[in-house]
């Protein structure tokens, strides 16, 4: 379980009247339960990525505490896997080597690395491409390699920073279903950031809506659409169901109002 307690973060910003501090996040209280799928949505500049960076340990909060299983988070670590929008893979390694990279860092033997990476390549449907260089596979495949790489070190939580943002619509829809399958099989706690309301509704068990200036939590909704998909309902029937469409309009409306307040 990851717990955030009254997290606030300020960045210095240079302006004409000297150095100023911009409050990016303020008073964030959030609990990420094991095996939950938390999705954060909000307008640009509301501090979504900063929040993920705080949990990943890339940034230190100015106020408040972040902890995982009761231990404070002091920096990045293998208990929180991160998948980035740009895949951040190593081009001099093959698909298999990329997936096994975390195990190599942990000093695992070659046999163990091979076995583990094969397991996760299978989970992400990439076993046929194990020996391909990563610059010869498509963008959607690269994201799956990034996912497999983060999963292979067996983290407690998986943090996904707009992992599908750079993909075309069709690949994106497929990857959403794929993410849900991986989530169901691996049983990891997930935290994902997205700009797409539909994607957020489809995947989330906990949907967090952020407001900007300063970044703060507007609402947390408990959702069931992802579970329904995991239990066998088709993605199209879920996405066209009345509750889904209504909720989508409602969330969109909320996001748009916040935009008007801003301007």
């Amino acid at each position, binding site marked *: 379980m990851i717990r955030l307690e009254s997290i606030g973060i300020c960045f210095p910003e240079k302006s004409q009247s000297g150095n100023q501090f911009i409050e990016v996040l303020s008073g964030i209280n959030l609990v990420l339960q094991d095996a939950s799928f938390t999705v954060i949505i909000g307008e640009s500049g509301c501090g979504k990525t900063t929040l993920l960076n705080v949990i990943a340990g890339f940034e230190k909060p100015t106020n408040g505490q972040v902890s995982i299983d009761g231990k404070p988070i002091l920096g990045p670590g293998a208990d929180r*896997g991160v998948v980035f929008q740009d895949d951040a893979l190593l081009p001099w390694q093959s698909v298999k080597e990329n997936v096994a990279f975390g195990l190599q*860092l942990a000093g695992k033997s070659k046999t163990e690395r091979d076995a583990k990476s094969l397991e996760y390549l299978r989970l992400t449907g990439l076993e046929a491409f194990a020996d391909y260089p990563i610059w010869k596979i498509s963008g959607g495949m690269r994201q799956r390699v990034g996912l497999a790489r983060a999963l292979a*070190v067996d983290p407690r939580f998986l943090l996904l920073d707009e992992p599908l943002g750079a993909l075309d619509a069709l690949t994106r829809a497929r990857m959403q279903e794929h993410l849900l399958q991986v989530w169901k099989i691996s049983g990891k706690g997930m935290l994902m950031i997205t700009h797409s309301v539909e994607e957020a509704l489809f995947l989330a068990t906990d949907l967090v809506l952020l407001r900007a200036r300063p970044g703060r939590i507007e609402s947390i909704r408990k959702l069931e659409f992802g579970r329904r998909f995991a239990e066998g309902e088709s993605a199209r029937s879920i996405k066209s169901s009345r509750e889904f469409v209504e909720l989508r309009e409602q969330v969109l409306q909320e996001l748009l109002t916040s935009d008007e307040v801003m301007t």
Partner: protein
Amino acid sequence: MSEQTTEFAFNELLEKTPRKDFIEMPKKNALRSVLTQQLHQLKIWSQRRSDRTYSLITFALLLLVWTVISSLKLVPELFLPSPAAVLRKFIAVADEGFVDATLLAHTCTSVARVLMALLLATATAVPVGIFIGLNRYARATIDPLIDFYRPIPPLAYLPLIVIWFGIGETSKIILIFLAVFAPISIATVQGVLRVDQSRIRATLSLGANRWQLIRYVIIPSATPDILTGVRIGLGVGWSTLVAAELIAATRGLGFMIQSAAQFLVTDVVVMGIIVIALIAFFFESGLRRLQKALVPWEGKI
């Protein structure tokens, strides 16, 4: 029967062709795609060939102009010897030598000096560059020093080096080393600073410590820039060579050219220049090939 042979030919064709498509498709489509690919490859080859043809034409034209000028005696032999004379000199110097050494001896001495300096410079400039790139304080301390001495022409600090290190081999190598060090270290710093932030973060959240990060991510990421630095350094090294061989040398291509210039043996001067150009070109293309082999993903990701 005929069906079998076409099938066989098709399989053979498929095996010979590097696969670039990963989508499974029916064989008929596959055959078409294989043919398209081969056509495409052919186009790339012929394009490459035509590029090379243009480069060769340039040199052929240059040679032609040179031949015409010298055969019409538009310029005295003393200023511009004919290509034939230069070629004759090449054979003569290769055979009998000039100023007490054969062409091969001169060349080997020069190549050894440049390579020695390049090796020393790479071995020191790369670690220094990585250190500067990773550490703000190191950058603030060392960067100004490099920026300070880099624009000074080697000939300007040559006397000082002779006073400090004498007229032996050391001074020559130090002079070339100093000239080569700056571009390699600057390129390395650039390479380290350019490493993708999310690549670093991804590696840290896979559990890497600082040394693993440097070894597995930062150095390989900076390698393309480092190699570019070495290429530039090699060019600078050859241009400093002649200056280095001003110091009481008894051998070397630069020394040979200068001795020839003092006796107005213009054909040896021209021949020496061409030999240096050819060797530098040979090294440059070797390094370029190495860069391509080490960084095949360049521009594809």
